[in-house]
């Protein structure tokens, strides 16, 4: 049965009694129409430039590409995680921001396509396809770590993620049109097994794409580690997106400090979770002191890498922990900008720190290609996102829990 598109709620504490459509629709023309084209075009050009510049230095090129591609891939798949989580928990508060996460997840097909260049870089990136292929330990893993299976699996992960991202995006779109409760029920039902699929694919993808850069090293919690950083970055991204949109005069009276507070709390929770997993991983391998494990950390504690490692721990955990602990920060625009922007940067640094020591043993060497790849992939990601944001309203207008979300008040 259809509902009208105007859910009501009783006023109180300054919340709008009904949803103002204009607040949640991107303008038809103007900056919103130009953005996808500009970003996409510029991004494509920069991508070409990246490859031109990197032609003579394939190892640097592909490492830079991997760092940045993986960064945006985790942001995209993090959007999917957010959507799944909200459906599984039947959350009401988050409905106003869920559409943004759906749109982020809907960029997964673009992200998947952008993996293709990496397929050509397998030999340059992965020692098990290159100079360590004859290592006796690596040879035991050849059934898993060889080019064919690796690429097939990558295709599977990316296709599965894209399908899930698109499916949830589409069901939510249909709900905008039809308002059927059955659609929400279906999304909830599918979300739970999808979460299991998400966990398994993210784990194996992180093993394949990042952990195998050091083919003799292994850590069972590595998937969990990547998950922690991904989730944290997702909340940061959502906060930044809302702040950007509010800067453009949208979402006023829709997303309030109450929602930011919750997003901030969840971001804080995942800063802590990431720190917990990261510390456990480090401490356990440090404690047992087994060379085949400690080598990986030793590489990151050389005189060249140690300063960055220390700064990274302080910047990714210690500072955000105390900063986000304060209630007022999570309810303050500038505080949220600072915290989210900073954490998005820290997440990038995390991936740089995971990938680059395999290439630059002496210490971090920021390269032009790092910057070019970041800009190129970032613009393409932004363009894809700007495109998906335009296709529907910015909130799920007929979601049955929208009214609850609009009136949400925090503890």
């Amino acid at each position, binding site marked *: 049965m259809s509902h009208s598109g105007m859910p009501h709620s009783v006023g109180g504490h300054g919340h709008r009694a009904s949803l103002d459509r204009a607040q949640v629709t991107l303008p038809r023309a103007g900056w919103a129409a130009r953005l996808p084209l500009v970003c996409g075009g510029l991004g494509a050009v920069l991508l070409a430039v990246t490859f031109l510049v990197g032609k003579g230095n394939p190892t640097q090129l592909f490492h830079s590409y991997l760092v940045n591609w993986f960064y945006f891939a985790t942001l995209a798949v993090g959007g999917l995680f957010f959507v799944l989580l909200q459906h599984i928990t039947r959350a009401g508060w988050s409905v106003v921001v869920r559409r943004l996460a759906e749109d982020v997840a809907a960029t997964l097909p673009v992200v998947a396509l952008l993996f293709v260049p990496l397929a050509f870089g397998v030999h340059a990136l992965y020692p098990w396809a290159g100079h360590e292929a004859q290592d006796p330990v690596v040879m035991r893993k050849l059934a898993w770590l060889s080019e064919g299976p690796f690429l097939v699996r990558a295709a599977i992960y990316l296709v599965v993620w894209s399908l899930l991202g698109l499916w949830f995006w589409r069901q939510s779109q249909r709900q905008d049109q039809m308002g059927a409760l059955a659609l929400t029920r279906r999304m909830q039902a599918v979300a739970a097994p999808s979460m299991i699929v998400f966990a398994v694919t993210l784990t194996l993808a992180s093993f394949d794409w990042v952990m195998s850069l050091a083919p003799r090293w292994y850590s069972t919690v590595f998937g969990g580690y990547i998950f922690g950083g991904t989730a944290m970055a997702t909340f940061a991204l959502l906060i930044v997106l809302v702040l950007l949109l509010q800067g453009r005069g949208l979402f006023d009276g829709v997303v309030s400090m109450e929602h930011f507070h919750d997003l901030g709390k969840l971001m804080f929770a995942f800063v802590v979770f990431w720190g917990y997993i990261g*510390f456990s991983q*480090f*401490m356990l391998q*440090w*404690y047992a*002191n087994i060379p085949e494990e400690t080598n990986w950390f030793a590489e990151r504690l050389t005189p060249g890498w140690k300063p960055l490692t220390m700064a990274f721990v302080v910047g990714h955990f210690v500072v955000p922990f105390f900063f986000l*602990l304060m*209630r007022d920060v999570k309810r303050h625009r500038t505080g949220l900008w600072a915290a989210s922007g900073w954490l998005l940067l820290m997440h990038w640094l995390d991936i740089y720190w995971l990938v680059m020591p395999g290439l630059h043993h002496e210490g971090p060497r920021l390269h032009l290609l790092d910057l070019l790849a970041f800009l190129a992939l970032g613009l393409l990601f932004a363009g894809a996102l700007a495109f998906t944001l335009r296709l529907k309203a910015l909130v799920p207008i007929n979601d049955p829990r929208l009214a609850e979300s609009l009136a949400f008040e925090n503890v």
Partner: protein
Amino acid sequence: MSAATTTAGSGPLWGVLGEFDSPAALYRAAERVRDAGFERWDTHSPFPVHGLERAMGLKRSRVPIVVLALGLAGAAAGMGLQWWVSTRAYPLVVSGKPFFSWPAFVPIMFECGVLGGAAGAVLGFLGLSRLPQHHHPLFESKRFERVTDDRFFISIEAADPRFDKSGTIQLLERAGAVAVELVEGA
């Protein structure tokens, strides 16, 4: 129109006690009492009524500060203890690890921090609430026994500068009290 008010306890007048039968009534009445400018007054309920701090004009609780301070102190103490024991008091070489094996000291440091924080929470709460306080004039009131069951109360002390016996009783009655009681005692 003021009905006959009862008296509880004996001795000098401590204050008046208004009884209400719902949280909403209590909330609205509290706003009135706040707006009338009283300072030495309180509301009482069987469970915390959401938003009542606003209706009463209370300042933010300082419990978080106590928690933070004791939490940090606890963590510092935990790390300090381990550092002192492992580097000064009884240094032992264990599996080749340095004397100050900070990664191995993090778990206990963290636990001590949590203990400090928890102590801060309970001590802060008790201290700021002035508990334990086993004796209070309000306990003389029979009606007041329902405060832990299903009734809501506002108490206004006679020591408040704006207190005026009949005026304050009238205020409470107009604010919706189902009963008003005079409370005597020290």
